[in-house]
């Protein structure tokens, strides 16, 4: 029973699924379009809610998949299904025959410039959460120059019909609070504000993180969506929002504004997804069978999904889903 399982995507979901499938005696094959495994999480510095280094987790995952057959810098360009299973053509012209396919293609970060009123790409000191995380990792970012006031905007590219994303991106709230604490650690004299609509602290220890953010890090959480950003004479950012709990419009000047960009579906898989006949759901992510027992299944027999390609998701959720997809694939092969 050394059946090939094609895993598209070498991020957290893909790697964890491969690890489990290999332990089950199957032969997972990872196809990753970038030059290394790890996906978005490999770019991350620390993880919420307890500031655990991301590298720890990523290194463990990488170690577990070191014997898994992996194609880097490779994309699936075509895929066919027949009675023997799936036949995928790769961008390096190799062909892979597999009994089942796991789509673990993850997410793209919302392009912040689409939310024009926030002026990302126009005003110098507007940055994204991803860029801030990179700053934490490398200590370098030209925009962060001993700032005295830093603001975080939640729900950028989420819960917003104007950018066609009506869903909640789930992880940004917790990430914002984590980063707010971290930036206070780096710049203890800075004032940090977050502008939220709801603080969705849905996981274990997340509410504690919120409490810590308020109490220990003195981060000021203001309920209200930032409405517009402009630049003043000194290149500082003037933001307007309503303090909705106070019921009054509010104006303040910030040195840096961090946009908590949402997750959108990774669209580079669209062509292959279409070939497999898998639709998108109303949020634009991949449609799985259902949200409960069929969460890893799709409308195409033998094609499975896991991770943030289904919906925005945290790392623990993704790992859980990757493990569950492995079980589903195993059962499918042994049906």
């Amino acid at each position, binding site marked *: 029973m050394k059946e090939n399982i094609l895993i598209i995507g070498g991020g957290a979901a893909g790697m964890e699924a491969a690890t489990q499938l290999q332990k089950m005696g199957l032969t997972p094959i990872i196809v990753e379009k970038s030059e290394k495994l790890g996906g978005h999480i490999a770019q991350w510095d620390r993880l919420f809610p307890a500031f655990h280094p991301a590298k720890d987790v990523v290194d463990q995952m990488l170690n577990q998949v070191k014997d898994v057959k992996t194609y880097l810098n490779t994309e699936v360009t075509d895929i066919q299904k027949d009675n023997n299973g799936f036949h995928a053509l790769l961008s390096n012209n190799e062909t892979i025959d597999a009994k089942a396919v796991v789509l673990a293609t993850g997410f793209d970060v919302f392009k912040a410039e689409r939310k024009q009123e926030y002026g990302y790409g126009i005003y110098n000191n507007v940055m994204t959460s991803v860029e801030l995380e990179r700053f934490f990792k490398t200590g370098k970012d030209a925009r962060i120059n001993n700032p005295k006031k830093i603001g975080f905007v939640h729900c950028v590219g989420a819960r917003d019909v104007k950018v066609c994303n009506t869903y909640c991106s789930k992880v940004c709230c917790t990430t914002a609070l984590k980063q707010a604490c971290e930036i206070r650690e780096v710049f203890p004299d800075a004032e940090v504000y977050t502008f939220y609509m709801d*603080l969705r602290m849905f996981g274990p220890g997340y509410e504690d993180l919120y*409490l810590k953010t308020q*109490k220990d890090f*003195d981060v000021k959480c203001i309920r209200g969506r930032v409405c517009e950003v402009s630049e003043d004479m000194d290149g500082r950012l003037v933001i307007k929002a309503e*303090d909705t*709990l*106070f019921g009054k419009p509010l*104006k*303040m000047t910030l040195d840096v504004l961090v946009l908590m960009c949402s997750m959108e579906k990774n669209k580079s898989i669209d062509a292959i997804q279409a070939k497999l006949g898998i639709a998108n759901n109303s949020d634009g992510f991949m449609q799985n069978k259902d949200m409960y027992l069929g969460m890893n299944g799709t409308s195409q027999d033998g094609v499975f999904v896991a991770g943030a390609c289904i919906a925005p998701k945290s790392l623990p959720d993704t790992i859980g889903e990757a493990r569950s997809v492995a079980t589903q694939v195993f059962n499918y092969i042994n049906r």
Partner: protein
Amino acid sequence: MDFGFCLSPSSHVKMDSVDLTTFNRLKETNPDINTCIACGSCTATCTAGNFTEMSFRRLLLMLQRGKEDEAKKMIQRCMLCGKCTLVCPRGINIRKILLDITR
């Protein structure tokens, strides 16, 4: 010349120039003050709030948004009955803060 109208003051909360002296003083003795999640339990249960605009969660915001005078006016309504403290899900010692503001 009388035009029959004049400039109106702006109602914007100008966070750049808000005076936080009182709030920061309170924070020193009551670190919990930061942990309000504006759930409104205090307002809902308030004995004085039954008859007036008294709302502790709003009062805290007033102090943070440069409306200290309004906050002090609001405290005048308080009967110090302590129900708010009992219902606060964050365990904030509201009655003590109310008393501390006034000192």
